[in-house]
């Protein structure tokens, strides 16, 4: 489905309405979605899709995905979260995960910023420095691989 300029403009207006004190208000988001579905005006699905995209990006900007080879102890988790709040402001939601493919170290992603201190990334950097292309040519850092 093609997102028209009008649909984008409308979605952005609705998205702006969902902010309270500079933060995305979940209740308002639900209200907007409910209202749009109820009204069923022309092209409402396109508007809602773009609106969903905007909300998704805003949520990603305030969500930190922290991966490590082994689960981090609670104390370290709190320290990492405190550090992230210092850098990105309060209200960061943290999702701690375990990814053995990292071998060691930690990988943090907040929105499109990635802080990679894993052994895997060091090895990839080393691989690039030597000009070696991996056999399958795949990006080993890609999640789910």
């Amino acid at each position, binding site marked *: 489905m093609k997102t028209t300029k009008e649909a984008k403009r409308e979605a952005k207006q609705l998205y702006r309405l969902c902010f309270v004190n500079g933060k995305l208000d979940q209740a308002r988001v639900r209200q907007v979605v409910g209202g749009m579905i109820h009204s069923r005006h022309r092209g409402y699905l396109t508007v809602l899709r773009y609106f969903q995209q905007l909300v998704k990006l805003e949520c990603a900007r305030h969500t930190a995905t922290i991966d490590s080879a082994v689960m981090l102890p609670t104390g370290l988790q709190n320290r990492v979260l405190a550090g992230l709040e210092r850098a990105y402001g309060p209200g960061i939601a943290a999702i701690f995960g375990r990814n053995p493919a990292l071998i060691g170290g930690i990988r943090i992603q907040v929105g499109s*910023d*990635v802080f*990679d201190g894993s052994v895997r990334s060091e090895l990839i950097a080393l691989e690039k420095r030597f000009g070696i292309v991996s056999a399958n*040519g795949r990006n080993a850092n890609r999640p789910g691989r």
Partner: protein
Amino acid sequence: MREIMADLLKEIEEQIAGAKATTIRQNVGVIREVGDGVARVEGLSDAMLNEMLDLGHCITGLALNLEETEVGAIILGDFTQLEEGDEVRTTGKLLQVPVGKGLLGRVVNTLGEPLDEKGPVESDVAYPVEKIAPGIIRRSPVRQPVQTGIMAIDAMIPIGRGQRELIIGDRSTGKTTICIDTIISQARLNRAAEAAGDKDYRPLYCIYVAIGQKQSNVARIITILEQAGAMPYTIIVASPASDSATNQYLAPFAGAAMGEWFMDSGMDALIIFDDLSKHAVAYRQVSLVLKRPSGREAYPGDVFYLHSRLLERAARVGEKYGNGSLTALPIIETQAGDVSAYIPTTSSQSRMDRSIWKRICSIRASDRPSRSAFRYPVLVQRRSPRR
């Protein structure tokens, strides 16, 4: 022996203790859509315009559309290897090509990679493909001629070093021939000056950019230049018709970057864009796939800016800035002689006409002086043809 081993172990221990785990900060995104040499990437909040993107699989992209939620990037390589969901990283670098004298005598692609099986290109300098043209202060008047070797042109419509002169005409009217003759003429002059040990002579190096042409045509031109011994003074940037539209779009800019190196190093260079009609078509294709708004004949609104910013890079810079120059000879192909079509409407043109070509083929030029507009007719002309 034991002491030496102990020292070595101590040294290693110190190095391990001093080694710090480095954290790499990157800006990443995810491919949402890929096809026709263009990828739409979600994320990449820090991407710059014209920044190189690492798409993985040793493929590079170029960020062209920066939107609120995504980035539109053109892919410089085999896009069939990419999949939706692949991770993309910013590199913090603008697209660059190797430049320097090491490229002379070589046939390279848009990215400056060799196509002639003569081994890697010897160059340790790279120039950005997109660069702002020299400003008013850096420029100086065009005074020195480019000898095309074609009497009709050198006598009636001389071209100056640092000038840009459009060659416009229908197909098979000899537009490319004029340019090839000019390259050969320059090579002869350069060789003669070298043989005579003339230190005052400023050699003119040539860059021929083939955009959207048949591979056989490019091969023919290379053969002609090799037979005439012009290759040691020439760089060929080839982006043939089989190349992707993105490569065809970038080829003239890559050639201009190579020419700018000569200009910045106080040397003279001549660049031939063969041809800009096909370049405009490639740019139209890229723009349409990027979903940019289209205007007349489906060309994007900035198609004139595209060519003007490219041709503005041709300049003669002042003595304070090295006294170098870059002359541009863009070629435009018209349909049925219609010079007032959308793309051909550019100033300063040397018009080619088939009937005229046939009549005055003895002097190997089909210029129609009465219909040509020139900027530096007398200023750059040598005394002998003026007389």
